[in-house]
């Protein structure tokens, strides 16, 4: 009842005060089945809403009106209407969806089905399943290049990047990388892809034109045992200056020069840092820290951690809505 009241009250507030609210960050709490909503101006949690079981990957529709949520244990992708904060729809997702990526056409959603070793492509406009593509074991990371040409899936136990042609839905290339690849991030111009390998402890830089690795990065966090340096989430600034790499149980985020691939600094955040997102004007970076159950806020200009915000249990994904 309490949550219901809060939600109604907040919805009313939003109704009254739009667009005075600052941009909002959404955090999926894997073990609480909730979403925490953070006001990025006050950097405080303003609402917590119930979603499906084991929410992990989350992403925004291109018009920022909807949030898609992988509800892994419900075997579905939920559609959250951001204005009302209500689940308005579900999409056929295949089993155990973990991460997904939306094509720039705002229609084709590529979903990694971790338990089934497939990638499901769903048209979100009419819920048609367009393809199910066989990939390696435990498909996890999903990314679509900004130019829409490639969808890339990482399969954790197969340790490969599968490059899917978005027109034919066929795999055109498999690149073996370090053990347990988790995440792929494209540069804004779609020329470079960054892929993290959690157990390998590496980040692989792929030249997209030739589909070849051009560089392999490793990390050494002072005072932290090498086994605990486990790259997961990657976030790039749009000016091409920095790459931020979440290093898992080393509890640090690496700051990387995105041109020279040199590590500039390691920033101490919460325990087992997983995913990252930049806010509207790229002044702050938000990180989800799975084990400590909080979100760290990094000042991008000063490269300093300025705040930690308590959220739910095992925060997994974070997405900041630039328009809210």
């Amino acid at each position, binding site marked *: 009842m309490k949550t219901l009241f809060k939600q109604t009250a907040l919805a009313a507030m939003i109704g009254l005060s739009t667009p005075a609210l600052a941009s909002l960050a959404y955090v999926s709490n894997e073990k609480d089945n909730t979403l925490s909503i953070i006001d990025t101006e006050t950097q405080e949690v303003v609402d917590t809403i119930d979603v499906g079981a084991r929410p992990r990957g989350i992403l925004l529709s291109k018009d920022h009106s909807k949030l898609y949520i992988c509800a892994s244990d419900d075997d579905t992708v939920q559609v959250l209407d951001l204005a009302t904060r209500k689940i308005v729809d579900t999409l056929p997702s295949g089993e155990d969806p973990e991460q997904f990526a939306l094509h720039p056409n705002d229609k084709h959603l590529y979903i990694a089905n971790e338990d089934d070793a497939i990638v499901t492509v769903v048209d979100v406009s009419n819920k048609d399943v367009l393809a199910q*593509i066989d990939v390696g074991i435990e498909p996890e990371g999903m990314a679509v290049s900004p130019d829409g040409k490639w969808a890339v899936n990482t399969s954790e136990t*197969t340790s490969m990047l599968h490059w899917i042609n978005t027109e034919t839905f066929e795999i055109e290339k498999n690149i073996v990388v370090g053990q347990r690849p988790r995440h792929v991030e494209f540069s804004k111009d779609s020329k470079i892809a960054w892929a993290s390998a959690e157990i390998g402890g590496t980040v692989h830089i792929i030249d997209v034109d030739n589909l070849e690795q051009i560089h392999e990065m490793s990390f050494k966090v002072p005072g932290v045992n090498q086994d605990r340096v486990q790259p997961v989430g990657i976030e790039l600034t749009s000016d091409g200056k920095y790459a931020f790499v979440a290093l898992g149980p080393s509890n640090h985020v690496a700051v990387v020069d995105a041109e020279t691939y040199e590590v500039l600094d390691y920033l101490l955040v919460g325990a087992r840092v997983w995913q990252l997102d930049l806010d509207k004007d790229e002044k702050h970076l938000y990180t989800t820290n799975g084990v400590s159950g909080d979100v760290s806020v990094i000042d991008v200009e000063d490269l300093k951690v300025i705040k930690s915000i308590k959220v739910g249990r095992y925060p997994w994904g974070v997405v900041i809505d630039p328009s809210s």
Partner: protein
Amino acid sequence: MSFLSRTATATLITLACSAPIQAESLEVSIGYLQWVPDQGPVLSNVLPEPEDAGLRGAELAISDNSTTGKFLGQTYSLNSEVADSEEAAIAAFEAMRQDGTELFVVNAPAGTLNTMMARAGDNTLVFNAGAKDDALRTGQCHSNLLHTMPSYSMLTDALGQWLNQRRWNEVFLITGPTEADKGWADAFRRSAQRFGLEIVEDKPWTFEADLRRTASKELPLFTQGSDYDAVVVADVRGDFGEYVPFNTWLPRPVVGTQGMSPVTWHRVVESWGAAQLQSRFRDLAGRDMNSEDYAAWAAIRSIGTSVTALSNANPGEIRNFLFSDKFQLAAFKGRKLTFRNWNGQLRQPIPLVHPRGLVARAPFEGFLHPESKMDTLGFDRPESDCRIND
């Protein structure tokens, strides 16, 4: 997934998945041999152990390897034999070798393994996925034998570290009558010394009564002692140990082979992606994955990881790769696993579990090692006579 029928999925896959496959194809055949001697009648036979423990883990790993292999033109097959005697296990080993199998996973006692290794040639690589005997890691060394099953001392060191960091330093040890019980207890005594624990009582189990009727009467008397922080049970086959918890003279926790146990694997392990491995296994076997399954799985995944990197299945090259710094096994234990180059043991964290939950995971913070913290578990290089790579 209710709305997408399996048939629809299959059709779509045929349409959508025609990943270009590298021209050269490679067939990798792996032998799995299991011989688990009869444990004799046990008192605690309420929940029997699965008879296919190990085999199903091997099958899952073959399927995992094949999924990866299909993108590289590599196929994997398992030739398995669950033998009912030592002779039959050795005969099957010989027969498979004659047929050209060079890679083996063996879930059998140390004696059987020693016999097999004495007969195996240079071109045979064997993974021990069953025997926990410390002797195989300290003195009876075979250069082509690797161990994915942790040794007794790795398990008891995990327990010893945990007792130390809980400051439960005084323990009451109960040891069963079998060789395995003695092996486990000897390993624990060594761990106690390493981690500053005092064994205030060290009593062999001699009772022969049926404890299901009389545990509450007999065990309190058996565990009388001045004081202790915990009771440690060494009952590997699960004869009497299940009746020790809640029946001790003093209100103390029970740890060891029963109560809270150090294990290779258990269904309660779910972090680091383990939930996915657990559900894959349940889909395949219709039961939970246990330590034997995990050890066999890790062995065949080690082979698969090497073959992916090498593009061939030559046992000598696989062996070299496994000991090189290029090898790392992602095995759902939160860190990369590698093989100790002195005795071929797979380094690995050890979960401490009770039947329905994970308590902790060794190695613990504060137990330091210059090379790898995982080497604080089990016989470290200076403590072992094995030098299989020197």
